[in-house]
């Protein structure tokens, strides 16, 4: 079931990503609604993180394109904040909590302009919103998993974006942190922001998200949570009976065949 959103924040068209000759995303085509919280769900290896990266242009696309706020991504980059998976970062890096949040201002300041009072105010505000003000001077390796996640969130807040893409923000955080992050996301939504979250816990998904995308290499469903969260759709997402597709993927890899006629 694929329902198109009325006011579109993100539009993906025929996205295909092949990694090491194995299809990770196959022909994804959907629209996501403006000003709502969307969850991207699917089993391990379903391509959830890759989908976010594809929207952000962080991975090479083998076909298709994505548009954000009906524009090319490069034209609206300053309206988009990305929160990578926590594990993708070197937490031993010599930086304090405040240093990381300051990075959120680099985009609007460019590579050279100095931080002004306004920037400092935004950074303080972001830190206090996630409840990390008292940790501002702490080195990032000395934080718990939940605190690290909140630092990332504060960095995204400091970007003052319109669209927030979060990759597994609840992985490895305790229940109370999860709740406080979720509260913050709801507040952001009330402020008119669009939030997209990669998530893997089915239990909480229905309550957390207004809109759901079910993914298993290909798109299984996209639509309002209450319509998408059905046993049948979840089963076809998680049981993954796309044997033919995976056999074709093996053929592509073994024979080194391009996935598009004039592609790589």
């Amino acid at each position: 079931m694929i329902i198109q959103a009325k006011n579109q924040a993100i539009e993906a068209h025929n996205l295909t990503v092949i990694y090491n000759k194995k299809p990770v995303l196959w022909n994804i085509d959907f629209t996501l609604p403006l000003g709502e919280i969307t969850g991207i769900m699917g089993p391990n290896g379903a391509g959830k993180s890759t989908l976010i990266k594809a929207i952000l242009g962080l991975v090479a696309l083998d076909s298709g394109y994505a548009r954000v706020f009906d524009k090319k991504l490069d034209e609206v980059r300053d309206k988009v904040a990305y929160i990578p998976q926590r594990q993708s970062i070197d937490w031993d890096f010599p930086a304090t909590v405040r240093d990381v949040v300051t990075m959120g201002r680099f985009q609007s300041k460019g590579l050279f302009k100095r931080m002004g009072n306004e920037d400092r105010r935004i950074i303080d505000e972001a830190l206090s919103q996630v409840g990390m003000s008292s940790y501002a001077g702490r080195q990032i390796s000395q934080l718990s998993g939940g605190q690290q996640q909140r630092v990332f969130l504060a960095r995204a807040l400091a970007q003052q974006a319109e669209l927030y893409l979060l990759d597994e923000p609840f992985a490895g955080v305790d229940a109370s942190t999860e709740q406080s992050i979720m509260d913050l996301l709801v507040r952001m939504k009330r402020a008119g922001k669009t939030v997209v979250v990669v998530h893997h816990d089915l239990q909480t998904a229905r309550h957390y998200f207004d809109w759901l995308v079910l993914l298993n290499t290909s798109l299984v469903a996209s639509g309002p949570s209450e319509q998408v969260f059905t046993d049948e759709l979840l089963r076809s997402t998680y049981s993954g009976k796309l044997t033919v597709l995976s056999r074709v993927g093996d053929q592509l890899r073994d024979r080194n065949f391009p996935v598009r006629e004039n592609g790589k």
Partner: protein
Amino acid sequence: MASDYTAFFLLQDPNVRLVLAGTILIGIIAAITGCFTFLRKRALAGDAISHSVLPGVCLAFLFYGEKNPLVLMSGAIASGLLSLVLMEAVTRARLARPDTAIALMLSVFFGAGIVLLTAIQHQGNAAQAGLDKFLLGKAASITREDLQLIGLSACIIVGLIAVFFRGFYLISFDEDFAFSIGFRVKFLQFLLSVITVWTIAIGIQSTGVVLMAALLVTPALSARMWTDSVVRMVFIAGFFGALSGYVGAFISYTAPALPTGPWIVVSATLLAGISLAFAPGKGLVSRWAVHQKNRRKSTDENILKLFYQLIEKSGGAQHGLLEEDLINQRSFNLQTLRTGLKRLIRKGLVVQLAGVYSLSEAGMSAATRVVRLHRLWELYLQRYLHLEPDHVHDDAEAIEHVITPEIEQMLAEELGYPDKDPHQTNIPPETL
């Protein structure tokens, strides 16, 4: 010069035989040991160990006072092992990342070696002459005692590897699994480290500490290109190592003033270059050939498909086609189309009479199959991947070329032997 060459190749000079035996033996055991260094992804640690044996050699000389091969080798092994232990301790205590620990030990140990070496040189000890041959290697300096030591070490090292082959093989692949089935992983790791350091310690005679890492890794890398079996890899690497050693000995004989290490490394790297380019399957040329073959296959099948589509369009009336008909139907590069048509004629799939092309019976059947696969795949995309009918064509254009008869069967079965594609055109039935 010419007589030099013949003297070398005919092994007339007993000294040539000595040097040659030494360098070849070193090449072989370094390559064999190096296979495990390579498989455990420790090439850079191997580099650090090679540099780290230098202070050991110098200290051993300082204490003993002369260049006894056994003493120097023991010193080399001791300092090589010390650097390895420190490297692992620093990494394990999370004081530095592995790459930093490797670089640090490499340069600090080598620095200590240089300090000792220059200090010894400035003392003007007559016996020190030639200690710096360990930096870049000098095969010609291999003496009878050296060769005895090399030979004995080679026997022991090869013997140990043969005996513990399965253990080394498994810890290179998956240490946790090896541990879980009761292998003594710690012991095996330690033994392999000792063997590696030992190999380096005897190898610096010909190759020198600075470039010894290449003799460990480059032949192993080359061998890996030719085979997927570790046993075969060990033999092929040994062969490459021996060849490189041979070159080193030759250079040392014809141009005694030159260091041999760089020549050994250059010849090993040339062998690697040949392997990377020409090895069947993994080599660049071979992969390029596959790419070309794929492109030819796509072109041929696309042409066949054109025939089918034009015949279908005309309701079966039109059989003979001109080049223009084909070009008009699909934007082909004229040259590509012509070479494609020629290939198809050669294969007996297309017949040409006075500029008019038509499908042979076999051609018709091949064309039908491609169209069938295209339309089956479109239907699959629509049903299982939930794509809109106007989004399925591009994907099918590529995938139709890779579907095997077996996958075709699975497809047809999953789709319930359909006869209409998403655009409501007929899916031609299976042909025989």
